[in-house]
């Protein structure tokens, strides 16, 4: 396998690639668990579906629902109870969350492998698997960078029997989104090759430092793979390189995918419908809990380290043109290394002159809300007569008057009949909207901040 690991093998272009791979004698050796060839593929998939549909409802069996439809009217035709339930669920989730910060490896490197084979045009998910995957991937990228600020994402597509580099490993969410922007450029066609794509992803992560995670996320709608060699060699290589492979399957379980996840410590899921697809995809957003050093024995296997980092000054487009040290080009904008004053084009990076790791401090700060979360507010059940006189009649944050609920509609525990949620720290009262907004978005209590 490693002997064949060369440029020609990785970058077979699509016109020659199809026949080359199909003619390859050992093409079925590893990846053949799912199927034996193109002809049988469609039949095979149908069988799988038939078997499965008895147990689980498929997306195409249910009518198209928007998330709004999950809020339902109660007997009296009021939406209030269901809405309250939603609010309460969010609140309860927070209350159950551990107060102490969880150890997380936050510097992550992820390559997203998108199935762009013709099977992605299937409409069992609306509008198509492909469109849904694109939409969710974009949302995933935004959320992922939000929680993994120093992380980098690369994108590889699988179509026409080859792996296709769609986006280089970058640390800027906008750059990743840009390469996922054009639907037409990503138009699905041909067959996917898991092995080619995984090898391409693996190669792009081989140089990474030890304190960062290496992950591959595969979104896969096919039940076949056309591979040039033994995919188990690729699996072994991933295990050796400590690359965690996770798969979100859109059709059905493929044994080789499951094996990749099990052996590399990733997670495997089959999406049952649109909502479930999103759920299992977004479970991969939070950093994997740092494996305790204990697992590798005391003093061993700990990846934690203290890193020296420089926070640069950014020069505007209007500054005088000078030479950058990374490309030796004359340009105005750039970042100045605080240690050696060299001018760099992009961050995060290691300074080409002095080797200092240069990052934008706001990138680091993106994750600090994990470390110092706002304490959960407590629902105020009643006010003493004295409090009724002295307490503000309006939310401390947004200044809107508290909307007291009718006694009869109160069902959910953790819900304040007075619409008052009190910060245990600053003792101010907030409305339900602000409670959610403060804990889910702002991460700063207006009274404590």
């Amino acid at each position, binding site marked *: 396998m490693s002997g064949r690991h060369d440029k020609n093998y990785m970058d077979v272009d699509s016109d020659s690639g199809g026949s080359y791979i199909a003619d390859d004698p050992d093409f079925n050796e590893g990846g053949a668990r799912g199927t034996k060839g193109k002809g049988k593929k469609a039949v095979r998939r149908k069988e799988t579906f038939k078997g499965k549909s008895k147990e689980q409802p498929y997306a195409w069996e249910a009518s198209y629902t928007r998330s*709004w439809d999950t*809020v339902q009217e109660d007997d009296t035709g009021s*939406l*209030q109870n269901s*809405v309250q339930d939603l609010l309460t669920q969010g609140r309860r989730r927070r209350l159950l969350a551990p107060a102490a*910060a969880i150890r997380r490896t*936050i*510097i992550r490197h992820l390559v997203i492998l998108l199935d762009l084979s013709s099977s992605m045009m299937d409409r069992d998910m609306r509008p198509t698997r492909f469109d849904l995957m694109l939409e969710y991937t974009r949302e995933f990228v935004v959320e992922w960078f*939000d929680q993994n*600020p*120093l992380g980098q994402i690369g994108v590889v597509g699988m179509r026409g029997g080859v792996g296709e580099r769609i986006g280089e490993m970058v640390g800027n969410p906008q750059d990743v989104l840009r390469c996922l922007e054009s639907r037409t450029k990503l138009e699905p066609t041909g067959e996917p090759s898991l092995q080619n794509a995984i090898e391409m992803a693996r190669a792009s992560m081989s140089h990474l430092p030890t*304190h960062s995670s290496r992950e591959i996320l595969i979104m896969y709608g096919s039940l076949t793979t056309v591979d040039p060699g033994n995919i188990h060699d690729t699996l072994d290589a991933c295990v050796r390189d400590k690359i965690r492979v996770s798969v979100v399957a859109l059709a059905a379980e493929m044994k080789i995918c499951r094996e990749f996840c099990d052996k590399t410590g990733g997670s495997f899921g089959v999406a049952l419908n649109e909502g479930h697809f999103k759920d299992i995809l977004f479970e991969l957003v939070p950093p994997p809990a*740092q494996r305790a050093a204990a697992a590798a024995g005391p003093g061993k296997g*700990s990846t*934690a*380290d*203290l*890193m*020296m*980092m*420089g*926070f*640069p*000054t*950014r*020069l*505007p487009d*209007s*500054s005088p043109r000078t030479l950058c040290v990374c490309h030796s080009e004359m340009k105005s904008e750039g*970042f100045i290394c*605080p*240690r050696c004053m060299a001018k760099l084009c992009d961050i995060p990076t290691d300074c080409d002159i002095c080797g200092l790791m240069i990052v*934008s*401090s*706001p990138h*680091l*700060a*993106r*994750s*600090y*809300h994990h*470390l*110092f979360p706002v304490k959960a507010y407590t629902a105020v059940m009643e006010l003493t007569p004295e409090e009724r006189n002295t307490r503000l009649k309006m*939310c*401390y*944050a*947004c*200044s809107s008057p508290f909307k007291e609920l009718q006694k009869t509609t109160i069902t959910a525990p953790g819900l304040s009949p007075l619409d008052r949620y009190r910060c245990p720290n600053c003792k101010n009262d907030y409305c339900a*909207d*602000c409670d959610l*907004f*403060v804990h889910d*978005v*702002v*991460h*700063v209590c*207006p*009274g*404590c*901040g």
Partner: protein
Amino acid sequence: MEDSPSHLSLVLDLSPTQWHLCSTGENPLPLNAFLAHLLTFLNTHIASKHENSLAVFAALPGKSEMLYSSTDPTPPEVTDTADSNTYQPFKALDSAVVNGISRYMDAVDRNAPEAPCALVGALTKALCYINRLNHVPIDNANLAPTIPKAPDPRILIISVSPDLSSSYISLMNSIFSAQKLKVTIDVCKLFGPDTVFLQQAAHLTGGSYLNLEHKEALLQYLIMTFLPPPKLRRYLATPTQDKVDFRAACFCHKRIVDIGYVCSVCLSIFCSPLPVCSTCRTKFPIKTLQRLNSSRPPPTNGVGKPKNGVPTSR
């Protein structure tokens, strides 16, 4: 400017000490002279488009307060009889802001040490307010699409205080939530040196940062730089963003640093190498500590960096 309505939330830094310094010394700008410029600017914003909305928040020592909002323009305190010569919205705005400010300034105990100004408190209140205005009431969500009450929202911070590095993390959190809400943060630095963190706030949200040199021309600068809604600015020659300083505050001493030691687990920043992360309790390898200690840059002249350990409180 006639095209689309926009919402402006003003955050006013009202540190009594800083305003005292600002109204004395060379090139002085007393608070009441400043207010005259500011109110004209705010009135221009309200008058330039019927649907424009406005809210004013005060950052005071140890607390923050909403002084005015155009959706609820008459707070109970304003009891002046209507003056037929003044446009009513202006009058309500002017008296709410002026009365509000003088109420707090009069209550200041000049002998007590001044608590830091609750700038982040005022900023998060402004964000909560914008979130509330733009939040479609759930009961109507599936009816006719509602026009957001705070369209093209922005926050203008008028700052006279230096960076408060103890609120670094909460300020950054507010900046990120502004990004998510697509709220532009503008900063007008009236007095004192540039603030690193507010520069970052403007940069990260696509706003303008202006350090005012000619205080006598304040109104002109406010109108030129901050009156056009963010959507229109790219068509106008508004001052371009200057250098942005990406320095951060260390968690150990709240000191602003350009080189820091960062925990790989939780990303806490420290100004000197330490064996255990004080945030997440991770132990760092001894080898790393030796390497970092030996390669540490020499202390910068004058403002010496702390020697190993021994954090000084106060």
